[in-house]
């Protein structure tokens, strides 16, 4: 499974993109479950968001959903935080 997060907006307006391929990873199942839940919680079009809030695009195996701070589901927040730290 290929998981990508693209973060835009924020006070700085600086974009950040991180991705990872879970194949071969010992914790792949955990990532899959998290990514699937985060995708279920996402929206098909970008939400309005709030001034200076981060906007996110989550893309899993070619499908993209949207979400924005501060209204993230627990799975979205966890996935985004981990991927921005550990992804490449």
């Amino acid at each position, binding site marked *: 499974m290929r998981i990508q997060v693209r973060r835009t907006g924020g006070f*700085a307006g600086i974009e950040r993109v991180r991705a990872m391929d879970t194949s071969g990873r010992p914790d792949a199942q955990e990532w899959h479950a998290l990514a699937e839940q985060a995708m279920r919680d996402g929206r098909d079009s970008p939400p309005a968001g709030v001034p200076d809030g981060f906007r996110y695009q989550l893309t899993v195996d070619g499908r993209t959903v949207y979400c924005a701070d501060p209204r993230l589901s627990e799975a979205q927040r966890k996935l985004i935080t981990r991927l921005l730290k550990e992804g490449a």
Partner: protein
Amino acid sequence: MPASRLMPVSRPMPVFCGIVPPHLLDRLARAGDPAVAAAARRTLVADAAHRTGRRLTTVTGAPPPAQEVVPGPQRTLYDAGNRTVLPGTRVRSEGDGPVRDATVNRAYAGLGATFELLLTAYGHDSIDGAGLPLDATVHYGEDYGNAFWNGEQMVFGDGDGEIFLDFTGPVDVIAHELAHGFTQHSANLAYFGQPGALNESVSDVFGSLVKQYTLGQTADRADWLIGAGLLAPGVGGVALRSMKAPGTAYDDDVLGKDPQPATMADYVRTGRDNGGVHINSGIPNHAFHLLAVQLGGKAWERAGRIWYDTMTSGGLRADASFTDFAGETVAAATARYGRGEEREAVVKAWSQVGVRAE
């Protein structure tokens, strides 16, 4: 309006006596951040003048019956404890002394400085003009490199320490977030495309004005930077945006290069960042800087007044383009100052960034 907000004092000098204990102001006046220190010193001076006035009143008899009531801020600070539940735990309310957490105290002082500029320069009571309480949450999230306005309150992260430091550090960042509340309650510019870039620019304008006001700077002495002191040591940059020279604030391996245009010739068309609201804001930012420098003196006086009038006159549409906004600033300048140098300077500033304003 709660009675605690009302303080009878005589015009013309509004002071916030009794809200900030002098010992805190003394400490803030010696604080590391020159903007915070300057704000605290100014308030100390104002308080001293007010106390003298009170003593004189005691000696000379009762004050005249027709006293005016001058509003004060109603600040409440919350600590999210590095979680993301808002607002978090209340840690400091209006009139409370300083707490051990410097982040809380910085945010409290920054909200006070913004409130003071709006009131003393424009007679605007809080961000809605009607005494709206100011709520802010600090320590939001873990290593959270951002600050935002959620429609009701300000939210500040601690930064990751590698790229961004604490977002309550620069007073212009605090004022920027609060100005989003001002915009929401005035022109309510849409947060997308050109009206979104104007929304961002208005926050940068009032963010910088609060910093200049607290430092007592004239337009030619101000740095016109947004977020100076926010970038961690080692990051290649001086700030996040420059109103004086958009596109020059940073150039770094991790952050990339400041993408802001200064004029319409370099306008960026993009769907990202809500249509580039943090990018194209460089154009109206630069127009304001040019106007303020052209007029000279303190930027919050005439230049700031024209921008304030534009936002509050009721003539600006929520979906205003740069051209619409420029036209409204010309109308505001004419309404307040007539067809003199102010109006001419406004038209010229917009023309210099490639926006036609008639």
